[in-house]
């Protein structure tokens, strides 16, 4: 399941049985075991309160694990204060020091390390050139736009060549266009400088665009850690299937399982064949996950028994430029979505009785929601 996209698989950071509670009653992070590889771009993705930011803060050293330890290389860092961890961090609201100029901000991590003035000057100039803000060196953070501040925060976190860079929703405050531009810029820096990045976001689009691997958090647990395409195509449970991308859910009971294929009797009548992914045995309840672009609309019964077929009524067609979204009413799901490629909906009209058809390999039987 694990992605093999990156060449090196040396582990840089290891979370070993890490738990965290703030109030002594409720675990924000429940038993986390996670390896971060050298040179990878790992995103911690999840809804708010899922434990992803707490995980990042424990790695940065601002929170202490209640149980377990974190290792950088072979070194346990539970008792290492943040300033000795050699981790660069980009904060949600940049946290640029308002009383210092851009140049002084970027020079700060170098000057606290006692590097010579001449070298600081050189490296700061190089860092500002890298983010193309050399001309604004003398300005204060308050005089810069959000995007510019973001780039300065990046330069400041990278200028001392940290072993690891953490980013806590760094693009949250930017507008959409700027955010997309910055995603590419961060990606470029990651590739050209060979950085190891741990990135926290609740925006799945951002996670899919940028990451080598994504760890999906919910309820203090890593639900799945995988390459973006694997997460989308092969979610291992209903939470991941629903959280990443659009998903159609059909509920039913497992009738039997044969060689990885499950026959499922839908609650609304009829039965379908699906990939058995995360179900117990026969008789268990299950949620079937179907991606909207993996479903076809058929106007008549083609008689092909290799596909699952369910009757439906087309309720709406929404034109979205590159594709058209069809909304259908099926007994099993009154708002079933199908994405039709541009120009392929000729002959369809709202109110029409049709069939939705999908292959068993595109239908995943997961835990019941």
């Amino acid at each position, binding site marked *: 399941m694990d992605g093999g996209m990156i060449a090196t698989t040396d582990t840089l950071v290891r979370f070993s049985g890490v738990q965290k509670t703030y109030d002594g009653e409720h675990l924000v992070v429940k038993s986390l075991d996670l390896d971060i590889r050298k040179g990878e771009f790992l995103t911690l993705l999840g809804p708010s309160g899922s434990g992803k930011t707490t995980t990042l803060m424990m790695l*940065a*050293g*601002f929170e202490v694990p209640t149980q377990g330890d974190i290792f950088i290389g072979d070194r346990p860092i539970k008792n290492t*204060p*943040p*300033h*000795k*961890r*050699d*981790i*660069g*961090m980009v*904060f*949600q*609201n940049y*946290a*640029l*020091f*308002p*009383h210092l*100029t851009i140049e002084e901000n970027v020079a*700060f*991590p170098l000057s*606290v*390390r006692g590097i010579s003035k001449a070298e600081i000057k050189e490296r700061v100039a190089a860092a500002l050139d890298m983010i193309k803000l050399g001309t604004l060196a*003398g*300005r*204060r953070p*308050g*005089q810069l736009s959000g995007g510019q501040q973001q780039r300065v925060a990046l330069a*400041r*976190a990278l200028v*001392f060549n940290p072993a690891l860079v*953490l980013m806590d929703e760094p693009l949250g405050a930017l507008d959409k266009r700027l955010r997309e531009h910055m995603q590419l810029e961060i990606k470029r820096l990651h590739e050209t400088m060979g950085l190891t990045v741990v990135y926290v976001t609740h925006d799945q689009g951002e996670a899919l665009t940028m990451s080598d691997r994504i760890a999906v958090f919910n309820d203090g647990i890593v639900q799945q850690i995988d390459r973006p395409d694997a997460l989308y195509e092969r979610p291992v449970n209903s939470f991941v299937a629903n959280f990443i991308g659009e998903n159609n859910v059909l509920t039913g009971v497992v009738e039997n399982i044969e060689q990885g294929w499950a026959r499922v009797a839908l609650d609304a009548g009829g039965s379908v064949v699906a990939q058995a992914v995360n179900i117990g045995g026969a008789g268990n309840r299950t949620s079937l996950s179907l991606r909207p672009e993996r479903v076809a609309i058929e106007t008549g019964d083609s008689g092909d028994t290799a596909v699952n077929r369910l009757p439906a009524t087309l309720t709406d067609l929404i034109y979205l430029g590159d594709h058209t979204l069809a909304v259908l009413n099926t007994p099993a799901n009154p708002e079933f979505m199908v994405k039709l490629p541009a120009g392929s909906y000729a002959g369809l009209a709202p109110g029409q009785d049709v069939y939705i058809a999908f292959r068993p390999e595109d239908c995943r039987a997961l835990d019941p929601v």
Partner: protein
Amino acid sequence: MTAAFVAGADVPLKRRLKRAERTRQFRALGLVLPLLAFLLFTFVVPLAGMIWKSVDDWEVPQVMPQTVAALGHWNGQGLPDEAAFAALAADIRTAREAGTLAVAAKRLNYVVNGFRTTLLSTGRKLKEQPAPGTAKDTMIEIAPAWGERESWTAIKSASGPVTSYYLLAAVDLTRNPDGAIVQSPADQAIYRDVFIRTFTIGFGVTALCLLLGFPVAYLLANLPTGRSNLLMIFVLLPFWTSLLVRTCAWIVILQSEGIVNGSLQWLGVIDEPLRLIYNRFGVYMAMTHVLLPFMILPLYSVMRGISPAYMRAAASLGAPPATAFLRIYLPQTIPGIGAGCLLVFILAIGYYITPALVGGAADQMISSFIAFYTTETVNWGLASALGAVLLLSTVVLALLYGKLALGRQTTGGLKN
């Protein structure tokens, strides 16, 4: 398109903007007008009156108009002519009848010690206006002081309408009979010491408040809201009791038979009671207590606005806690430190009741001298002059602060 439109309609647009703004300005003015009028009558007018009193020199011109006129063309060398003596005799007789002689006597006594006796005894002894041509001899016979040039320069120096006498006296300077500015005689030169003492106590109290207030403000700003509100009540508690009550509480606590001495003696730490009050220690203690909230509040409000993310960012960039504090946190609190110090210092140098109650004779600050001259000796001129010097030093400090605070904000140039 937009640019062309704006450029073409430039003048009318500006005028329209002005008209639109005017209504708002009138409304704003209406809102502040009551306060403005209040301040004018309770602050600006008395202040101007006070400053005028420090240079006003009305006594001698009013009581002895003829003498003042006669001395108008005296060059200050030797004794004035016969006419001046005659005018003096006439003025003294008139003033004695009107009962105003003592007013002039008091004013002239500031310049020459003993002038009051000279003038009042002359008034008593001068039964009638001397015959023409004999005025000079008669006067010198009644009081030999009239034969001294110093007496006449004193009258001329006090002949108004304005004088630098009080202001000079407030900084231990005076004019000699030739009109040159010289140091006051040693027995009168006390105000410079008092000003130095006032500023020393002011700086001391400010430093103590900063030292004690900074950690408290930091704690308040970084605690969860519930607990910080509770602590804030304790900070504000002193405001709910009167200054007098608080100062008297210190007397109860610090006096020889007080709680502190009693406890220390009971514990056997000391044999004799420590002298904790009616000295400089008591003044620092009581004033710091009273003024502490004025330091804590501005510091707190500034610290509240400093995001904890800055300290975290500094730590993640490799700064140990002390470095992060000194280079990142402390510089951001400077506006609060400046405001708090200025507030405490300005309040401290005006303190009167506290040093009067818990200080010794050598701990009295400038305000108690101002009070002494206004209520005891009714020397409004000197009281006003001392007040004016205090005001001037306060204004200079406030301007200095404003310049520093403003300088910090504008370094680095304005946006675009």
